[in-house]
């Protein structure tokens, strides 16, 4: 869990837009329906009673594994998160089940922000990318997030406050 300093407050928590998950969910749904498609084909063959038991057992275990894979996909989506606080931006990326990257930068390092809406779907569903250029060499990009302008305005507002305090 992220530790905040006593006077630090969370302003915005951003996850990727739900559309990012849709492709994987669709694939998962297709795989879940596969036994329903295969069952009529199997019924053409003469299978002994014990064989049917084995097929049912395998089908249930197959469904269980597919649901677990969907659970991992959802976790991967859900744990990719950007937290904007009054002091910093924390970028947490869940690469896979055991690989996680956390990077953060202070708001007073922010130099400029670029908002990018990459395609037609992004325009209609109101999501896009934010690239934050910092005083360091590295730039941070936050991809496929909703509430783009809200995030941009909050970052700019608090970055400006930080700059004013340091001057």
């Amino acid at each position: 869990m992220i530790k905040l300093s006593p006077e630090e407050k969370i302003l915005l928590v951003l996850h990727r837009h739900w559309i990012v998950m849709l492709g994987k969910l669709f694939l998962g749904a297709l795989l879940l329906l596969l036994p329903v498609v295969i069952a009529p084909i199997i019924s053409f063959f003469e299978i002994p009673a014990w064989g049917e038991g084995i097929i049912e057992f395998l089908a249930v275990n197959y469904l269980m594994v597919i649901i677990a894979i969907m659970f991992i996909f959802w976790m991967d989506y859900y744990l990719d998160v950007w937290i904007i606080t009054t002091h910093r931006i924390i970028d947490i990326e869940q690469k896979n089940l055991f690989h996680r990257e956390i990077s953060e930068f202070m708001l007073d390092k922010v130099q400029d922000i670029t908002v990018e809406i990459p395609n037609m779907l992004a325009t209609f569903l109101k999501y896009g990318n934010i690239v934050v250029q910092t005083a360091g060499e590295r730039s941070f990009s936050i991809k496929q997030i909703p509430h783009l302008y809200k995030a941009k305005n909050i970052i700019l507002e608090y970055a400006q406050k930080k700059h004013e305090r340091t001057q």
Partner: protein
Amino acid sequence: MSFPVTFTIYMTLLGVFWFFVGSVLWHLKEYTMPDDYSSLIVKIFIIIIALLNLLGLVLFFRIPLQ
């Protein structure tokens, strides 16, 4: 295949499976932000997985093994 061998293989695979499910739960417990909607989705996934696991076990014991 004899019952003890099949049962051991099945239990080993279930152990590996629940290790991965447990890892996901640990990650979610460790890194979830407070006051969000994730616990409901986690509960739904876990209930479905547990029910399918239970059904799988019942079906396993119905397979006529020696």
